[in-house]
């Protein structure tokens, strides 16, 4: 059988990162193709390339008509590729019909006037395809998430009229906002529509992809590492393909693992935040590094933000140094000695226009007062100390934070928390946006901080990082903890962790 859509040797590079590396992938008529892989494997980048949001740096995309240049989602639509988005792209303040025909209203216009009757009639026909029987004039805000998902699917199906065969619809994590019975309905519809349309299905839930797809591709580090048909696919095989690199122990300074203290720095019991995570319990001793593994939507990022004081829990307790604390706000968390190194460094971690020195003294500014006024001399002394200890480059602490590289910026963020006397650090993807050379320095720094007795809660970009840096690992999936490992006692491999992650 021939492909109705193929991707040949496509690569996409962002700075130093190869998000897609020589990917070849094909979709045939009337099939559902699944895409699985860890975070950062390249799934959503591949979808964005197919949807025209990104343009490949190398390689070609082809369909029955020939090779395609997709410079925008509109181009993709003209080529017969539609998309149902993860974060819905419907406008909530207009009606369902208007959303379906957004940008395509001209067919209903006569002498400048919109023919609502015709538009609603056409809308009704489209909604029938997904068996959604709501009045087309309904304001989209009033629909449930599941209904909105169906409207998006109906919107993508409008392309059928222009592409009798060869329509491919990309489903980008459509199940993340749906309940179980709603997922069943979605799958039902997709199976029925498969007679006319092909789908590319991306989900982080392996069992879902295996259930719905006729064929699936496994991605890792931007490459396609394997293909399986529905019959061949087993969870074990998929897990094996998703991991598979050898750990370079020195890379993560695993030899620097010291004996961990006996005092518990942070203890969390039955923490819950409805919709984000539930019944989370763990403790971290002084000098210990606890890594949380999980895919997007597992709840791990929410747990991090909860401890940082950004999202207080609805139930459960957090104890710091043996005392129960309510972390209602980031300032409370900071006063309790918790430092947060956020994912969005440029937005939440540093004030980019302020100097390195000012950033370092920011949360502990009270320490730098002389006679009630801020003393730049004291600030300078502190800044000089950190620049030296952490090898922050360039060593000029009067430069604005924006002029530093990602890795050095991260060092400034860490410096500011240690200066403020943080006993617990919450590190959210600490090496994101840091180039390969600097990552090693950041790992060493993290190990050193632990050696000094700081307790660290870590969410890493890759499983490898988690395994290399952590003393203990907890795995989360679908908002609950599914596994716990102690590195020393259990010596888990990547496969062990993936099993509880997807």
């Amino acid at each position, binding site marked *: 059988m021939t492909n109705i859509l193929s991707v040949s040797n496509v690569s996409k590079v962002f700075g130093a990162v190869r998000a897609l590396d020589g990917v070849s992938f094909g979709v045939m008529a009337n099939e559902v193709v699944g895409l699985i892989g860890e975070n950062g494997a390249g799934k959503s980048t591949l979808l964005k390339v197919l949807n025209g949001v990104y343009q490949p740096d190398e390689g070609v995309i082809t369909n029955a008509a020939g090779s395609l240049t997709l410079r925008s989602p*509109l181009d993709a639509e003209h080529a017969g590729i539609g998309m149902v988005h993860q974060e819905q792209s419907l*406008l*909530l*303040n207009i009606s369902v019909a208007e959303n379906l025909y*957004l*940008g395509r209203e001209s067919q209903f216009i006569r002498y400048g006037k*919109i023919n609502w009757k015709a538009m609603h009639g056409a809308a009704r026909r489209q909604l029938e395809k997904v068996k959604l029987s709501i009045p087309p004039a309904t304001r989209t805000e009033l629909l449930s998430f599941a209904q909105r998902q169906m409207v998006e699917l109906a919107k993508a199906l409008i392309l059928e009229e222009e592409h009798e065969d060869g329509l491919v619809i990309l489903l980008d994590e459509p199940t993340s906002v749906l309940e179980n019975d709603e997922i069943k309905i979605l799958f039902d519809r997709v199976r029925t529509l498969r007679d006319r349309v092909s789908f590319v299905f991306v989900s982080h839930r392996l069992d879902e992809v295996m259930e719905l797809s006729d064929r699936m591709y496994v991605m890792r580090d931007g490459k396609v590492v394997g293909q399986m048909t529905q019959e061949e696919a087993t969870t074990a095989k998929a897990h094996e393909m998703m991991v598979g690199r050898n750990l370079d122990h020195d890379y993560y300074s695993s030899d620097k693992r010291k004996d961990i203290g006996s005092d518990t720095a942070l203890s969390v019991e039955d923490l819950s935040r409805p919709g984000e995570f539930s019944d989370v319990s763990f403790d971290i001793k002084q000098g210990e590094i606890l890594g949380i593994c999980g895919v997007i939507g597992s709840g791990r990022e929410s747990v991090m933000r909860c401890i940082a004081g950004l999202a207080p829990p609805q139930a459960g307790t957090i104890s710091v140094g043996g005392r129960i604390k309510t972390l209602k706000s980031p300032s409370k968390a900071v006063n309790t000695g918790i430092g947060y190194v956020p994912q969005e460094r440029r937005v939440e971690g540093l004030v980019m226009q302020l100097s390195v020195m000012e950033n370092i003294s920011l949360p502990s500014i009270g320490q730098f007062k002389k006679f009630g006024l801020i003393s730049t001399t004291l600030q300078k002394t502190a800044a000089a100390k950190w620049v030296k200890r952490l090898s922050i480059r360039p060593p000029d602490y009067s430069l604005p934070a924006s002029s530093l590289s990602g890795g050095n910026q991260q060092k400034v963020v860490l410096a500011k928390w240690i200066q403020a006397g943080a006993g617990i650090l919450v590190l959210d993807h600490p090496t994101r946006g840091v180039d390969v050379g600097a990552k090693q320095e950041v790992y060493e720094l993290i190990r050193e901080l632990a050696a000094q007795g700081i307790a660290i809660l870590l969410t890493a970009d890759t499983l490898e990082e988690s395994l290399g840096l952590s003393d203990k690992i907890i795995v989360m999936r679908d908002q609950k903890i599914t596994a716990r490992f102690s590195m020393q006692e259990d010596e888990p491999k990547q496969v062990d962790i993936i099993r509880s992650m997807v």
Partner: protein
Amino acid sequence: MLKKIKPFVPLLMLLFLCVAIGLIAPRFLSVGNFVRITSSASVPLILICGQTFIILIGSIDLSLEGTLAVAAVMVGLLGQWVGGTAFVLLAFPIAIVGGSMIGFLNGAVHVYLKVPSLLTSLGFGFAGLGLATVLADGGSITITDPLLRYAVFHRLLGFPMSAWIGLAALLVALYVQDQTRLGRWAYVLGGGEEVAKLSGIPIQRVRVALFVMAGAFFGLGGAVLGSQLGLGQIQITTGYLFTTITAVVVGGTTLTGGVGGILNSIVGVFVIMVLANGMVLMGIPTSVQLGLQGLLTIAAVAISLDRKRLVAVK
């Protein structure tokens, strides 16, 4: 439950005011008074036809008074230079065209030079006032043409023509809002400009078109205002910007855009006019009146604001 009531708060506020004032000052509830309120509401009703769309797309047009002044002065000048029937037939269309041109400049600078609408419209507002002053030679031009006075003062079914012109403007605005792509796209831009862009909607052209339309309505308002007062002069415009924006916001069209519309703004205009009328009937001094209007605006915005959509309150 609060969420379900929210869209009706302005209307409830209006009803409450009518009842309360009616009880305190029964003269309020007379046909003559109602006609009076509607007459004074004529110009604001024309003005909200333009401003509502601008606020719907998340922008703001502060050039209103400048455009009013230019239009009023232009009508005065036309009377001086042309005079007669020709003048009256041309006066209103020329005012509309003049307003549209200012609106075009406003919109174009905002869209193509990427200057926030707050600043461009503020600038063009002052420029407009300046232009009007120059055209009027620093003074004022009297507008006495009887046909023009007829066009605004003649009573039809008990209501002055200015009110009927206001009604006509509202009908045009409602038609644009509900039956044309331009109107619907105003909501789309307010609801999510990124999505609009990805869907191939020409957002820049839509923005400029809406500013041109706003200018047109402001121009019409200026012509009516000038004819009502018999003066082409910049001082007559004072207060209309505040009244218009307050009316739009009080009526329920949020400053963040995407929500509200002409019907909302009509309610908003009447809330303000009823309040002003009532305060006069109740003998409340002018200073207090202004204070109350200010408080009303704050209350209206605080109730209607969709806080979820705000990333940071500035």
